[in-house]
Structures are given as structure tokens and as C-alpha cells.
């Protein structure tokens, strides 16, 4: 069980960082954006999202502050930091490398 979560967690972190690279957002917004862009193929579990967000914040890759949402309710907005931006590049490269490798193996006859 633990292993599965880890993999998911790593991927989720990447998705969050990418999503935030387009601009600051709150948790709900992130789930909506990801679901939209992936054409509903990815549904984000809030139970995974929020711990990830907080973890990324502790690691210093995103920062947060309270702000007003569309509904005029107070919400916590997250945004990418400079370190986060660098991290995004690194992780994106890693992801591409891994998927390439996996594909090569899967294409093995």
C-alpha cells in the first residue's frame, strides 16, 4: 500500500507544481484545473491533495497566503516559488526520462 501512495504522491507533486506554474491557485482550483485539462481522466483525491500541498510548502517549493476566492470566501492560495520553479524543471525532466524508459521496455516484444 505504501509504495503505491509514494508513486502517486510523486506524480501528484509534479502535477501540482505544473498547475501552479500557470499562476496562484487554491486547492479546489487545482483539482478543477487538473480534471479539466486531463479531460476528466484524472480525478484528484482531496485526501491526497492537501497533504501534498502542505508538504510542498514545507519543502519551500510553494508558498501560501490567505486571499479572497471567487465566492468571496477566504481561501488559501498557493503559488510557485523560485525554488519551486527550478524543481519543476528537474521533475519534468525526470518524468520524461522515466516514461521514455518504461515505454521502451513495454515496446519489447
Amino acid at each position, binding site marked *: 500500500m505504501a509504495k503505491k501512495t509514494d508513486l502517486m504522491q510523486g506524480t501528484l507533486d509534479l502535477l501540482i507544481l505544473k498547475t501552479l506554474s500557470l499562476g496562484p491557485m487554491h*486547492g*479546489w482550483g487545482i483539482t478543477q484545473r487538473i480534471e479539466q485539462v486531463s479531460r476528466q481522466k484524472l480525478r484528484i483525491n*482531496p485526501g491526497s491533495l*492537501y497533504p501534498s500541498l502542505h508538504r510542498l510548502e*514545507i519543502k519551500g517549493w510553494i508558498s501560501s497566503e490567505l486571499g479572497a476566492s471567487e465566492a468571496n470566501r*477566504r*481561501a488559501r492560495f498557493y503559488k510557485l516559488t523560485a525554488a519551486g520553479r527550478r524543481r519543476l524543471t528537474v521533475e519534468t525532466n525526470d518524468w520524461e526520462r522515466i516514461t521514455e524508459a518504461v515505454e521502451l521496455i513495454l515496446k519489447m516484444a
Partner: protein
Amino acid sequence: MLRKVTTRIRAFIHSRNPDHEIDEELRFHLEMQARANMEHGMTHPEAQRAAVIRMNGLEQVKEAVRDTHRTFFDSLALDVRYALRTFRRSPGFTAVAIVTLALGIGATTCLYSVVDAALFRPLPYDHPDRIVRLQSWDIQTGVVGEAVTRDVFDAIQNAQTIDSASLYVPFAIDSTVLIRHGEAEVFRTADISASFFRVLGVQPLLGRPFRPEEEQPGQDGVAILDFATWQRSFGGDTGIIGRELPFEDGNRTVVGVMPAGFLYPAMAASLRPDILFPFVAPLARRNLSSFVVARLRSGVPLKAAQAEADVIAARFPARPLDGNPAGIRVLTLQESLAGRLRPSLLQLLGAVAGLLLIACLNVANLLLARGGAREQEFALRAALGASRPRLFRQLLTESVLLSAAGAGPGVLLSSWILPSLLARLPGRFQIVPHVGIDSRVLVVVLAVTAASSLVFGVWPALAGSRANLTEPLKSAGARRYEPQRAGRSLLLVVESALALVLLIGAGLMINTVIRLERIDYGFETHGLWMTRVRLAENRYPDAVRVAQFYDRLEEQLRRIPGVRDVAGADSPPLFGGMVGGLLGIPGRPPLQPRAANVRHVTASYFSTVGMPFVKGRGFTDRDELASPSVAVINESMAKRFWPGQDAIGQTLLVDKKWDVQIIGIVRDVCESPAQNASLRLSVVEPAVYVPAGDATDRLFRARFFLVRTADSDRDMSSPIARQVEMLAPEQRVDVSEYSQNLGRGFAEPRFFALLLGIFGGLGMTLAAVGIGGITAYSVTRKTYEIGIRLALGATPRQVVSTLVLSVLIPVSAGLGLGFGASLILCRMLQRLLYEITPTDPWTFVGVTMVLGLVALIASYVPARRAACIDPMIALKTQ
């Protein structure tokens, strides 16, 4: 690395995030989700519920988020607080666990302090591993001696592998007398070489060491004081250096004072020397123990020194009696001091480890049992999102806290007990001043505590965290099955086995000690007191004064109420006796040096000691002060030299001076005490008793006084001491009772008996408590089941016996295991046992039965409660 630190700091800062902010954030998400749902057509309540379901557990998510903020210490603090709450809820369990652990850890601390000081801790000298002792060694007989001649010593000093060597010659019995303020004071002295300080790598506290030239006769008028002496007799006066003191054999200048608490390299703590003199050649007296200590040259291994020592020994013709050793043995100083006791101490350490293990097993059992009761609690926590590792950590924290809570009182307890334990240490043991619960010991205690908590905590933690989510929450009692049944039975098996091993060991040792105390020496050792006086030349310049003093003292001692008889002797029975080649029989070939023991005694010696006459008579006072011409011999002597004849009337040459006639024959008594417990009997040898005679010979400036009391239990030490002090205030008075003196010779078996007895007793108690606890717990857990059985017709007796049996079966298996283990392990005690085999059937069977009985009672008492269960109530109890 830096990243980790910054992460940690950030985590710390963020942990300040108050809970309600996280709550708010999640609620916002829920609201937005609900809105989205409504946009998709759900009604308000439906939308909200769907949102909540989608969240998949609001509390769990909150917990997960909180967890990301938590530092290790936060979680730890939480765990600790939780654990404390748990303990408060079950004070009985907590108390039992803590006491159990305190006993186990306390016993371990105590014993380890002793073992550490004896075997592991380096001696308080400079580079103590470089200091060795050289002993004379008879290769054939294996006898180790402490005497060397000057030549041998010089050879050692000049050896290649030796940096410096020193003699250390303590005059334990012969003390020198200091005349001060007109009064004589008696001190114990020891002679040392000038190199003594260099060998040990120490410096005097004040003043300087001896110089090599001061080892020459005529130039040795110097002395160094021991710290205690300096404080006690000279008031700690720093002006003592350079002061001249008038000793019996001449004036000496004080040139130094030893540091406080200095450990002399070869004597038991009770015999520390008061004053040190430089050693002056030649090595005069034969029966002197001269210890040789040396420092190896740096880089030289022990083996090289031993090889060189062998060469030296070969150079000198072997004359062990004169001090030329047949061989020389080199060993480290530490080894020479404690080496003999190493096996015993290690065995005792093993025994205490067994006790500690019993304690841990007990606590483990308790925890497992309690784990069953807490299943609901843990199931709930798991449902709320606690992961298995988290639960495991929680339970382990509880174990560690219990351990720590037990360690505190345990260490305190052991610091109380340690002094009385030390008082009973076998006397050859030198480390007494240095035993204490210091940082070295505490470190070990810490490690032991941590290890214990793992030993008893891991399994219950594993069991408890494996929370079965559905069962406990369903049956709102979950009392229908006993978790970990097999495991707990196994614990009982091991516990019982260990307790039995300890108890059997104790039984064997106690048996031994009883037998040792019952040894027949040929005379009654109870109620015989002994003290020694030594008269200085200045106060008692001639024979007449000396004789007067002895007579007066004897008279005074007789006057003490309760005294039946008094006698004087140059050496008391069992100890000493002049073994000199100074005996001859006219008309017979020269005798061996050890042919007979010669004792110079007063007329009342035989009646005081209790030696009946087989033939003839003893001497009268008239025979004494005149040049003695009579003697009394013992049966062995008569049988040896005049078998089948009448020895009365025969003559002997004693001390080459006297021509004495035998006038009486007495019953044999033992001449020397059992050297160690495995020797069957103490030795009976031929002996000659000569009247104490004239006191001009220096030898007789010292005399032992023996006092036989009518009531053998009365403590005569003060009255006797008082009489001596009144007549001779300068004397260092030391009064002892015979049977107690002998007891000191059995210090080692007694020590073992004491400790094993305590460990065994504690082990048995702990096991009994464990058994009782388990049974009581079973009764509680099985109330429902018992109710059913009673309702279905079982008699209370059947119920009780089932319960008792279920506990006794593992216990019996344990006893069997312990029995077998004891057969193997108790062989280690072989050398301490006296007249009893290590597999003595009576002891084995007897002890096993006792432990079995205790277990039976321990399980029966709580089980009886089961009989009182009202089936109706039991069935209703869920």
C-alpha cells in the same frame, strides 16, 4: 544537508498553523465541491453529502495534513502524553510493571557496578594496561608464590622488556611502632622500592618519592605517610614534610604523603598500609610476601615479558622455599587482582541477566494481556487514520516510558543496597574503594533499560498495532477470544524455566554454605575470641616487663564476666603455627622442614581451645617461665613418630635450643582452615605444643590471646578490647571471633549463596505475580465463556480446575525446561560447592516442588473467583 535543515525549520514554523485554519481550508473545498455538485443537478443536501463522501473522511484528511506539519518531536510529545494518560487509567497495571522493572534493573545495576570495578574499569594508575605483576610459579605444582630473592629482583629490574620494577612488601602482621608524645602508636607499614611511583605512574600528594640511594642500609631514614594516616594521626598538617619522627627502629624523616584513596597494588582494602618505608636489601625474612610490580616498556607485549621472565627464572636454581622461583609468571595487574574472581562474577552477571529477563517477560505478558483489553481503542484509532507504524511507535513509547520509570527507582534502590553488598564481597577483592554507581555504570544502565524496553515492548507493540478493525468494534465487548494465547503461554514457559534455574542454583549454594559452617575442626569455633597484641621495645624493654604484661592481661581477661577461660599463644589454632625446620628427634634422621607445627602456648591453651588430653597431662605454670623442658604433642604426632609405643617420656629438640620431654598427648585439631570449599577437609598435621617460655626472643613480643566464653553467642569484642586498651592504650586492637573468621574464608560461596538466593527469590516472586496476573486476567476476559459453561451445567470446581490447568501446563513445561537447563548450567558452580554435587537430586527435586507449589497457589487464588461467577450476570455482560 542544508535542505533538510531548512525543511525542518520550515516544518517547525508551519506547525504553528492552528488547527482551525486547516479545517477552514478543507471546508472551503467541501463547499466548492458541493456547489459544483449542485450545478450538476443535485439537491443541496445531496450535493453536500456527495462532497463529503468524495473527501473520503474529513477527519482523516485533517490528520494527514497535520501530520505533514509534525516534526518528530511533536509526534513524540503526543505519544508520551497519550501514554501517560493510559497509565493513569490503569494504575494497578502500571504499578506492577514499574516495580517489576525496578527490581530487575536495580539488581542488574548493583551487580554491574561491582563487576565493572573489578573486571572492566581500568585501574587508577597511568596506563594501567602496561603494569604487570610477576609471581613466582612452580611449574609442576602450579603453586603461585609471592617471594623472590634480591638477585631475581635485580634481574627483573634490568630486563629488556621492563621499564621499571618495584617491590611492594606489606607487613600485614608486623607493625612498627611510633613513639609520639611519649606514647607509642602502632602502625602498619609496607616497604616499597624507589621505583614504585614510576611503575604505577603516580606522584605523592605532598613531597617526593623515595630516591634510589635511600634503598641502602643506613640511608633509609625516610618515610612516606598514607593519606588517611596523615589526616588521622597528624592532623593533616602540611608542615609534616621534613619533620623527623621517632620510630622503633630509629628516626625517620617524612618526605611525602600519598594521595587520598590511593589503591595499593596488592592488598585488600582493609589492610592498607599506614606508612611506607623504602625497601632495604637483603630480602631478609622468608615468610614475607613481597609483591613485584613492574611497568612494561612501551610497545612491548606481555608475551615478550613472559618469555624474558622464563629466561631469568632458568638462570637461577630453583629453590622455591628460599625465594628462587621455579618459574616466573607475568600477568597484568588487573588480572592478578581480580582474575580469580572473574568466573564467579561473570556467572553472577549471567544470573542477574536471567532475573532481568524474568522481569521483562513478566511485563511483556502484562502488556500483551492489556493489549487485548485495548483492542477497541486501537481499532478506533486505526479507523481514524492512524497508520500501523504510528500505532507501533505509540506502543513502543509506552514501553520505553515504563522502562525509564522502572530504571529510576531501580538505580536508587541499588545505590542503597550496594554498600551492604560490598561488605560481603569476598575479601581478596581489592576494588572496594572504587565501587560506585558512576557514569560508566549509568551508561550501561541506560543501555540495559533501552534494551529491556525493546525486549518486552516489541512483541506487544506488534500485536497491538495489528489492529483488527472489524471484530473489536462489532462485538462491543470482544471478550470472547484471547489474543496472543500461544505467545503468552510461551512467555510463561520461559519465565518458569529461568526462575527454576536461579532457584536451584541458590539451593545448591545455600546447601554448600550450611555444610561449610558445619565443618568439624576438632574444636568448638563458636564462642572463641581472639586478639593480638604486640609490645614495643621502648615500653617493654625486657622479658620481665613483657611477661608481667601478658600475665596481667590474662588475668584481666579472665575477670570479664562470661569468660570461662583464657590462654595465650604465638599463633592460634588453624592459623599459622611455626612451620620451621627446627625440630629434631634424638636418635633419628633429620626431619623434613614441614614435619610438624610448633606452637608456643600457655598452660590453659588446651582447656581454652577445647582439646582433651588422651594421655598424660598439660603443663603447669611452673613449667613456663623457667626454661621449658616439657612439651605436649597431638595424636597425629604420636602416631607418626612413635607408632604403637608410648610417646610420653620421649624427648624432642625444639628450636634447636631446648631438650624437651613429652608429658602429654592431646586430641587432634585441624591445623589449617579449608583453603577453598572444594577441599574436603582441613588438614590435620602433627603438632607440638611448647610452653610459651621466656619472652626475650623478639618473636614473643607478639602474642595472641584466646578467650573462651561460657555463652557462645555473646559478643565479647568490646569487653576484650576495653581490657587491652586499658592496659596498653597504644595498641591497635582487633578482636575477632573464630567462627566469623572462618566465615570470611568462605566469603565466596556465601556471597554466591546470598546473591543467588536473592535472585532466585525475586525470580520466584515475579513469576508468581506473573502467573497470578495472567490467571486473574483470564478470568475477567473469559467471564462470558465461563458463564455459559456454568449455565450448561459445569461445576465451579471444573471451571476453576480448567483455568488453573491452562496456566499450569505452560508452567510445568517451563519447570521441565528449567530442570534440564539446571543440570547443564549448575556445573559452573562446581568449584564453589562443598560436599554436594552440582546435580544433587534432593536440591533439584525439592526446589522444583517448591516452585511448582508456589505456581499452583498463584494460579489457584485468582481462579477461585471464577467459581463465584453468577452465570446470569456473566451472560448479560457484554
